[in-house]
């Protein structure tokens, strides 16, 4: 069995034709993933018992003549910020190195009900804070395409696992680009659905007004299938949306003729070099498919980085307050008073990036600065959302770059937090507006580094986003 070439459809066909059982596939996928993992460090730990139990349930369903589910037997990797009952969930942090969650995230429950087989938990930046996966307490992940380079972040492990072929699909989380940017760096598909489309119950909170769960895959259709499984209202997450979930994967007809696409002039002026050329070629390809392309303006773009890093750090400083040495396994041993216990536990265990963001967030929320920073940022956020609403009066979808550059060298940017934050410019605007957006492969640089193209659509119009991406993918190389 050639594990890296599997798709959701090919697994389903193989299972129903009895070419292999889900148990055989799970065993082989686990052996392959464990053997390949030292090359990238994409996985923090594997879950053989859970995987084999899930596979056995799929085999039982098939033996009884029942439908084995939309993700029957599919090997899935899960970012280690999404909780799994009885399976260690570290969030890439020393603070949770031994944390065993007492419940499953809703997305996990839905994946397994659909027959998905969770093979392991993937590495990520600590508490999903970073753009390179270098902020994990358990070491960086290497880009499978170029091992001296980063896989992107924060969901670097989930992107690398799918690119490396050790999982067919994976789950990541995206707050400001943490699914789309690593997808572009590793040359795979990565989707951030509409805010509220997928329940966050069991997703460790970073910035609650921006957090999303989203899938990675090697094809557009596989991400569409996974989103169809995990999306939908969940009573356990009051922010999850009630809008009905279309069967996205069945709506990919490859026809995008006459669709109006917008190109944001503010994004293209900042995009130089090979990434810019590849995106331009991608846009030409969309034109040959019959799309009408026009320039649009998103004038508040210049303020998006400041806006995002104020809101995200403010919310993070509040969400990370819970790691106080009481409920989550790790406590500093050097404290006589409760206050010292809190301070020492946090000081000794949070990594540098988490501390930086906690400090920033606490500062912008503190007395005297709240109006100047936090409230101001919320107003600018409204302007960014308004920009998109106006653009979608003229176009059906927006096409944009994902990152100003392809995967960079390990260690290249770790000492310059501002430069690292600025590189998130193209992904955080969509996050602030809460609209669906995805990254899909759009060719490679002369050095062979993947470049991703972003497709963004109106709230809850994932269908158009997937249709554009699917038609683009079917049309072949740029």
């Amino acid at each position, binding site marked *: 069995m050639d594990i890296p070439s599997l798709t959701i459809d090919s697994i389903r066909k193989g299972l129903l034709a009895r070419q292999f059982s889900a148990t055989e596939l799970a065993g082989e996928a686990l052996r392959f993933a464990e053997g390949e993992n030292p090359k990238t460090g994409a996985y923090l730990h594997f879950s053989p018992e859970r995987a084999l139990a899930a596979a056995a349930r799929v085999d039982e369903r098939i033996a009884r003549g029942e439908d084995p589910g939309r993700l029957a037997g599919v090997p899935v990797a899960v970012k280690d910020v999404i909780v799994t009952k009885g399976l260690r969930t570290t969030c890439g942090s020393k603070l949770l190195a031994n944390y*065993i969650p*007492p*419940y499953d995230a809703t997305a996990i429950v839905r994946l397994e009900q659909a027959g998905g087989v969770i093979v392991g938990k993937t590495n990520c930046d600590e508490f999903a804070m970073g753009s390179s996966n270098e902020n994990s307490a358990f070491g960086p992940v290497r880009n499978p395409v170029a091992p001296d380079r980063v896989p992107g972040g924060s969901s670097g492990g989930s992107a690398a696992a799918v690119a490396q072929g050790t999982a067919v699909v994976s789950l990541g989380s995206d707050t400001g680009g943490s699914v789309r940017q690593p997808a572009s760096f590793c040359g795979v598909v990565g989707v951030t659905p509409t*805010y509220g489309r997928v329940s966050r119950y069991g997703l460790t909170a970073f910035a609650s*007004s921006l957090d999303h769960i989203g899938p990675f895959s090697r094809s557009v259709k596989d991400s569409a299938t996974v989103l169809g499984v995990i999306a939908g209202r969940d009573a356990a997450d*009051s*922010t999850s*949306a*009630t*809008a009905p979930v279309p069967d996205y994967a069945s709506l990919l007809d490859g026809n995008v003729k006459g669709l109006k696409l917008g190109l944001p002039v503010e994004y293209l002026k900042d995009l130089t070099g090979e990434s810019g050329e590849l995106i331009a070629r991608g846009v030409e390809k969309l034109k040959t498919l019959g799309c009408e392309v026009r320039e649009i303006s998103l004038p*508040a773009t*210049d*303020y998006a*980085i*400041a*806006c995002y*890093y*104020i809101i995200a750090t403010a919310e993070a*400083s509040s969400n990370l*307050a819970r790691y*106080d*040495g*009481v*409920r*989550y*396994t*790790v*406590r500093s041993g050097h*404290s006589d008073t*409760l206050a*010292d*216990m*809190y*301070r*020492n536990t*946090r*000081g*000794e265990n*949070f990594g540098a990036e988490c*501390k*930086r963001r906690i*400090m*920033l967030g*606490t*500062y912008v929320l*503190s007395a005297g600065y709240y109006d100047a*920073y936090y*409230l*101001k940022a*919320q*107003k*600018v956020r*409204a*302007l960014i*959302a308004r920009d998109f609403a106006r653009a979608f009066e003229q176009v059906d979808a927006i096409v944009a770059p994902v990152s100003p550059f392809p995967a960079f060298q390990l260690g290249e940017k770790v000492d310059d*937090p*501002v430069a690292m*934050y600025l590189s998130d410019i193209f992904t955080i605007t969509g996050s602030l*507006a809460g609209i669906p957006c995805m990254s899909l492969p759009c060719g490679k640089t002369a050095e062979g580094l993947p470049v991703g193209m972003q497709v963004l659509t109106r*709230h809850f119009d994932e269908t158009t986003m997937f249709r554009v991406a699917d038609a683009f993918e079917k049309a072949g190389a740029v």
Partner: protein
Amino acid sequence: MKITEKEVRYVAGLANLQLEEGEIGKLQADLESILEHFDKLNEVDTSDVAPMAQVLFDAGETAALRADEPVAPLGNEAALANAAQKGSGYFKVPKVIER
């Protein structure tokens, strides 16, 4: 935006973060350069804009409510399973009240 070492220590106190001496200087420099970038927002006129606290959808105000019926709780044992220190069914912490 100038940030002093004293302010860094004050904010660390608010955030319950014990910082090493070496970390204070680094954070002072980082916060200063990041806050300088944040000041860019002063260029934007937001006098007639309402703050956006959440991505808003056309959901009714009771959309997030469920029927008021009891459901099974997590249970004491599971809730305490990850406690740093526990005893007699409670989380244990250093003594708070002096006698």
